[in-house]
């Protein structure tokens, strides 16, 4: 079955440009959080778009953003594998109850919520970036990209239940770190 009836590469490139480029900021944002490094993120996004274009013929349907995210994630995993000698951990190698999660300790009891005040973006970014994988990935897909549990599950190739427990862990860790920072300020 001919997938590309126009048969021209320029037509394909044009369709790809219109479908994929509007998501560039989103893809770049995810790359920044996954790789925690601006240069690596740029390389990964570029590689992601090249791979996406190559496989655009077999892509159908309007859910472009999750498709790009899934490709980006694979690019990032390859990047982790490449620098496996470094202490960075592969997204998928951490068990869900990873004890080494740096921000995790028992949440202190607090009846008040006023500790969680509005703060500037860079401070929040820092807290989110400090989350361990795979919790950071799930958290970013949910809180920054507003994807549904189902979409996240498809992207990270895990059951919805796993997405839920990762998200719960991510938020618990963030809450602890958030409040610890508030205490330091006061």
């Amino acid at each position, binding site marked *: 079955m001919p997938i590309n009836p126009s048969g021209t590469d320029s037509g394909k490139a044009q369709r790809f440009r219109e479908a994929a*480029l509007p998501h560039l900021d989103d893809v*770049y944002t995810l790359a920044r959080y996954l790789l925690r490094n601006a240069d690596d993120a740029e390389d990964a996004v570029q590689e992601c778009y090249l*791979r996406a274009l190559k496989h655009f013929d077999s892509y159908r349907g309007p859910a472009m953003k999750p*498709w790009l995210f899934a490709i980006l994630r694979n690019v990032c995993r390859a990047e982790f594998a490449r620098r496996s000698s470094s202490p960075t951990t592969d997204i998928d190698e951490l068990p869900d109850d990873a004890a080494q999660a740096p921000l995790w300790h028992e949440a202190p009891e*607090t009846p008040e919520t006023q500790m*969680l005040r509005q703060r500037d973006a860079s401070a929040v970014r820092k807290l*989110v970036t400090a989350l361990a994988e795979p919790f950071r990935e799930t958290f970013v897909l949910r809180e920054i990209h507003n994807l549904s549990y189902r979409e996240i599950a498809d992207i990270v190739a895990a059951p919805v239940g796993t997405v839920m427990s990762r998200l719960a862990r991510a*938020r618990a860790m*963030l809450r602890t770190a958030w409040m610890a920072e508030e205490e330091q300020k006061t």
Partner: protein
Amino acid sequence: MTCDEAEILLHALIDGELDAGHTRDVEAHVASCPRCAAALADYREMSKAIAGADLRFAAPPELRRRIEAALPQALPQASAPSRRSMLRGFAMGSAVSALAATGLVAIVLRNDDEQRILSEVVTAHLRSLQAGHLIDVVSTDQHTVKPWFNGKLDVSPPVVDLTAQGFTLIGGRLDYVDARSIGAVVYRRRQHIINLFVAQTANTEHRPAKMETMQGFNVRRWSEQGMNFWAVSDIGPDELAEFGDKFEATLKSNAAG
């Protein structure tokens, strides 16, 4: 419900992913458990702060430029060599297993989405057949129906007269598909109604017609000139195909004339 269960489920509550039964359970637990209530309040506050903080990054212009430059250019003559050089670039990446996985994702999502829109279109067709819902502007004159859409939609649906070909234009309607307004041009073939739904799309490529069947209705779907078309009717697929062919042909000759 225990605190352990609530600890997971209250996130689904915040995210609006919980069904009604579990929502009641979690809310009942939170009402009786100060610890979980405090956690829920904190998480809600956090989500609000995060939503307000804008944690996105803007892609550097240089990155955008590099990606643009790597795409084949829009001139057909120039595309062949640039494509070949680009494929050489791709050959460097080993992405076979990775792409098998993403392909799967894309297929699942695509089916979900296309099926969903298809089913919405059929539902809109069914709704239109209920008394008084079929037509907002009643006219057999294309020069009345077409201007009626002006200003009501972000696309001006093409309206062509196919009476001579056996399909009578009877009017137009605004409908609602895929969470937005969509134009419907209504035709009649004997006692059968054909709804032609027209929606704008960013994709300007011609996509050839595809015939599908859902809930006993036939749907002929195609894309042209930046618009998606769905013709829905209970007439047979051969007649619906004839309608589509004649519509496209008339549209083309109108454009040429």
